[in-house]
């Protein structure tokens, strides 16, 4: 049977602190890279973790995939012990990777993509934007303030039109990404609305707002979700989220979901 995912040790090529507490890690991992789809993730364990604590691997989105060189990138924020250990690693060291996991974004219906990323939500979206590069579409990126905007340069290179929102108005539009999205969708006629597909990742309240706006304009919307995970591969059933058809599992049925199937209470 053809293998679709792998449990591999990968070597770090570079690990940069691009903002305080936010790291961009580039690794050599041709196997995972050649199968990965935008929106998928890996379960990651730092090679510095010897012994049993922390016990579980941590889920990280595939931020970028260079299929020609077999290099892959993660973009992550240090929040606890697992991400702390990853942040302390340097080039030449190793990490354990299980992946690519989960269901990525569904790219079939995409005529005009609109990508919406809030804060670290851009993590899975750059891979998506680079995959869609060449299409006529938009990426809306947001942060609290200018200094916290992430990965603007590589997004610009995708050829998508880039719109920026900062909550304090220090760069781009003042306010939230959702206001920018709303203004954009308000301009569409019914036919164009049918061709638009929104892809969003960010904090849960943002995703809920994005879905409700899309719903109002009859625009298709997919979101990438996060939950706490143990296995990342459908074994433990721990990563449940509520959907219209009962519980779904973020690591197997997602992390990318058609937002209209989820319950957003």
């Amino acid at each position, binding site marked *: *049977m053809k*293998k*679709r*995912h*792998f*449990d591999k040790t990968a070597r770090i090529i570079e690990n940069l602190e691009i903002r305080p507490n936010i790291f961009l890690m580039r690794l050599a991992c041709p196997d995972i890279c050649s199968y990965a789809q935008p929106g998928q993730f890996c379960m990651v*364990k730092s090679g510095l973790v010897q012994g*049993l*604590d*922390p*016990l*579980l*691997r941590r889920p990280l989105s595939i931020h970028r995939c260079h299929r020609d060189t077999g290099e892959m990138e993660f973009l992550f924020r240090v929040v606890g012990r697992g991400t702390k250990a990853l942040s302390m690693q340097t080039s030449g060291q190793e990490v*354990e990777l*299980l992946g690519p996991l989960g269901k990525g974004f569904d790219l079939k219906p995409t005529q005009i993509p609109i990508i919406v990323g809030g804060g670290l939500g851009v993590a899975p979206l750059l891979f998506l934007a680079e995959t869609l590069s060449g299409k006529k579409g938009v990426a809306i990126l947001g942060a609290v303030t200018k200094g916290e905007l992430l990965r603007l340069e590589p997004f610009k290179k995708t050829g998508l039109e880039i719109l920026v929102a900062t909550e304090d108005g220090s760069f781009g539009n003042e306010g939230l990404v959702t206001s920018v999205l709303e203004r954009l969708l308000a301009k569409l006629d019914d036919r164009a609305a049918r061709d638009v597909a929104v892809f969003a990742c960010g904090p849960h309240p943002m995703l809920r707002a994005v879905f409700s706006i899309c719903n109002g304009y009859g625009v298709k919307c997919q979101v990438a979700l996060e*939950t*706490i*995970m*143990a*296995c990342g*591969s*459908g*074994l*433990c*059933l*721990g*990563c*449940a*989220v509520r959907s219209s058809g*009962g*519980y779904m599992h973020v690591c*197997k049925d997602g992390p990318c979901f058609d937002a209209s199937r989820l319950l957003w209470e």
Partner: protein
Amino acid sequence: MTKENLSKDNGPKLDVKIGGLRLKNPVMLASGTCGYGEELSDLIDLSALGGIVVKGISLEARTGNKPPRLFETPCGLLNAIGLENVGVQSFLKEKLPWLKKNQVTTVVNILGNSIDEYEQMAALLDGQSGIDAIEVNISCPNVKKGGVLFGTDPKAAFEVTRAVKRACSLPVIVKLSPNVTDICEIAIAAEEAGADGVSLINTLLAMAIDIEKRRPVLGNVFGGLSGPAIKPVALRMVWQVSRAVSIPVVGIGGITTYEDAIEFLMAGASAIQVGTATLVKPAAGLDILHGLVDFMLQNNYQSIGELKIQD
């Protein structure tokens, strides 16, 4: 480790028997941590293991508990999945054919809320080709007895075991809960009711509190603790139960390395199950098997039974 070490001719004898259940080696995967097998098939050859115990199955499908269902604790994992499962009919139609086709030794873990439900489950599984044994999860509330767990009452444990044994001709392993005063008492009840073996331990009842939100972390408040943190407790119980009953004992609880597995086999287990370790590393079970074989070769053990400490 080498493949040859695993072959019958020159390596130690690895096969074990639990009543009528024959395992080619003593390493199994524990219920709830290996799905229905297929989920792992991309990464490991399940047929190389002694067997797998599939996710606990009930008469009707169950939706499980409200999230969050997981929380990591020091060297441990708290879970409150709530026995989410596809139900016995879907299992037979959609999951069992794959296990059969891939020649995976399959133990079906069953659960119910009444003796009657356990009995019906056993009858439905009986005679299905591809099923090698039943493991009875008695860590479930007995609805008729006000929700007292079957596994905490020797009389209820006896009745469930006897009902399952009478309803089917498959080997029956009773899986014991550690959340009792005297686990040996329950093991003896299962043995008296005709169990072919007992497996232990299930998870330890536990909880965690989020001090910022000032509320329990898990949606269900309580959950089950598993992983390396529970290993010493599990090992002590396996030691005690092995000396209290004469049927085979399957050791479970925090087994992560081959050394852990050997401790359980020395304590008196005939076989072991790997749970949480598989969630962290899918190949954990196979790594343990290979490590075990190497250890036996190096120390001149000819069979699994020889590892047991005689006292």
